[in-house]
């Protein structure tokens, strides 16, 4: 990638290789092309077309808690497997949207942790097939407590596909981060640290919250705003997003609520002493590289990726 490349949305182009992964993120904000605006608007519009809404099927507290824990385990498995395979963050996030959408339509009974694990595997495998260039075969997805045959995972994949009505083209907040940073960054010094921060917020959010309750574009703009400034009031926030024309169709109220939610999640996390894997991950992003693996944020998706040849050694 041309080191002087200006900051335009790469999404409009298809990329065939990973060469851009070897370059440091360099954010140089230029006027985004009008094409980008149009594209972002079409993305936001497509979000509304898949208006799944989460529906609580069970209001029994213990079941809810059980599910929350099981989900957290699945999330942790998905993120650690993402790291092993060097998948993009958006792949992990996408798999969680499949996971949450599935659970809004079907209920997995209490105590069936294995079913949740199987679901997590199927969702990640499907997301990888949608997003990644290299997808490991099913037998390489190692669950924590159970061994699933490939055919069982494939059955689960089919079940997820039909339950989600084959609508697999999920939009994630990562599709928007570039654009939103470029839009509000004349007031804020946009750099690698801020980008990593925003990614971290999105990931922390995905860990805790049912992803069907918030639109990806809302999560993205809230994370970008929080990364730039954690002291926004409702008024200052509305002021900032007022300049982003592609956001007109989004409700300011939703954005503000999401901003507050992200902020609360961060406060909660900072008050919890033990570092979880997310904190570790995040620490890794800000130091540009360590443990011998290039961990660099890429321009095209802001995501880190381990070289594929590392895989065999790590497994």
């Amino acid at each position: 990638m041309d080191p002087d490349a200006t900051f335009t949305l790469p999404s409009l182009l298809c990329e065939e290789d990973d060469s851009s992964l070897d370059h440091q993120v360099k954010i140089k904000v230029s006027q985004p092309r009008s094409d980008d605006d149009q594209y972002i608007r079409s993305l936001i519009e497509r979000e509304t077309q898949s208006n799944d809404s989460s529906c609580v099927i069970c209001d029994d507290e213990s079941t809810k808690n059980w599910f929350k824990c099981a989900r957290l385990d699945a999330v942790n498995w998905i993120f650690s497997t993402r790291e092993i395979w060097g998948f993009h963050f958006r792949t992990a996030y996408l798999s969680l949207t499949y996971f949450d959408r599935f659970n809004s339509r079907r209920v997995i009974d209490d105590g069936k942790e294995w079913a949740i694990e199987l679901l997590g595997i199927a969702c990640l495998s499907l997301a990888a097939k949608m997003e990644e260039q290299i997808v490991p075969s099913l037998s390489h997805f190692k669950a924590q407590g159970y061994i699933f045959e490939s055919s069982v995972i494939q059955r689960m994949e089919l079940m997820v596909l039909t339950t989600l009505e084959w609508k697999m083209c999920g939009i994630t907040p990562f599709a928007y981060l570039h654009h939103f940073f470029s839009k509000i960054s004349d007031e804020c010094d946009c750099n690698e640290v801020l980008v990593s921060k925003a990614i971290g917020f999105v990931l922390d959010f995905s860990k805790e919250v049912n992803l069907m309750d918030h639109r990806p574009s809302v999560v993205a703009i809230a994370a970008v705003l929080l990364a730039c400034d954690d002291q926004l009031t409702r008024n200052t926030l509305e002021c900032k997003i007022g300049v982003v024309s592609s956001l007109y169709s989004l409700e300011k109220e939703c954005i503000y609520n999401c901003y507050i939610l992200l902020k609360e999640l961060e406060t909660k996390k900072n008050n919890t002493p033990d570092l979880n894997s997310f904190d570790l991950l995040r620490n890794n992003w800000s130091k540009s590289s360590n443990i011998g693996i290039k961990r660099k944020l890429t321009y095209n998706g802001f995501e880190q990726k381990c070289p594929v040849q590392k895989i065999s050694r790590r497994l």
Partner: protein
Amino acid sequence: MSNRSGSNRPEWLQQYDLIGKIGEGTYGLVFLAKIKSNRSKSIAIKKFKQSKDGDGVSPTAIREIMLLREISHENVVKLVNVHINHIDMSLYLAFDYAEHDLYEIIRHHRDKVNQAINQYTVKSILWQLLNGLNYLHSNWIMHRDLKPSNILVMGDGEEQGVVKIADFGLARIYQAPLKPLSDNGVVVTIWYRAPELLLGAKHYTSAVDMWAVGCIFAELLTLKPLFQGQEVKATPNPFQLDQLDKIFKVLGHPTVDKWPTLAHLPHWQSDQQHIQGHKYDSPGLYSVVHLPPKNSAYDLLSKMLEYDPRKRLTAAQALDHEYFRMEPLPGRNALVPPQPGEKIVNYPTRPVDTNTDFEGTTSLQPAQQQASGNQMSGGMAGAHIMGTRNVPRPVHMVGGMQRMQQQQNMAAYNLASQAAAGMSGGAAMNPGNIPMQRGVAAQPHQQQQQQQQQLRRKDGMGMPGYPQQKSRRF
């Protein structure tokens, strides 16, 4: 075969009478079937080849189904149903059947009637192809594998002569990452490949589809592939020098002057000797397509075959071209010119191999050709069609059908009833019998309606309809 329908066949299969196999490719098999409740309705059923053991559901299948689920346009093939055989987990896609495709139409004119395709038909096919492509591009979908055999034309019936873009196995939403084109053993013919791809561009746009349309346009005019390069077979994605050579011979040498980003393309940089060093004679596209340079068809064609993808005509611009505003005007029925007295070409129907069942196994029934009109016998085995005569498949006396009769628990996934049907398939799909309750589906019908409205609205925007519509054409 059609009279072998047992009463204990899987439910989804029972709604069809299988006629036979009509195609075979790297993706799997295609069958022709009739809907029992409506015998006049023909359906093409595409069975995906089982993915490699242990890979799960094939990514190509997921992408194709996902995209087809989202799109709806008169000039794009319509996915009617997705069926899953839960025994072996194979996937079957049911499409509206199209009797013809451009590969066969061109071949018929070249080899049988020995006469050019009439101008009305060429223009109507091109207009509808562009119309479908414009819809795809405005929904941020790139096809990436346009070629004559993927452009279908409807046979007799209400939609006679309507063009349908098919085969979305390689298509994708713009922002998704790309796999190399030669992935999954899918070999895309290089004849329709845009020069930026041949020169190793890492980034490319929907302009690659427009290049392919240009090549197809020229082929409709001359009945010969425009750039018939010798393919280098190697993995992955070898440099296709001969294909570029064929292009340069017709269009002249590209220059950095006219195509500024050319200098950054990998193969342009690396292959100084062959690509940059060789000097080509003056371009002669008009002599290849036998059109005078001032002709509007020529003008349109040359703008689709513009080297610089940024300057290449878009589908929307092409639809606006004066070529489509001149007589003969394009129409909905591309096969039948509206002027009475014009000769109508009867294209052969697709050859059907009636000896192959849904499992792809062959029975020992005598061959029956589905013949009609001036059906050609034999020698029909095109790139994508397997003729009746050469079916190099093992013969199973008790194979396929018998096994299929036991497969009762196939669940149909009916697109019309969306989630509801998806749910009803649940019991059969439940891996390892996980006890699961049915969740509340999010109002599938309403949702679908909304989606269709949105698509329709998008369709309406900038979609001019047939230019200068004249009622006689409809």
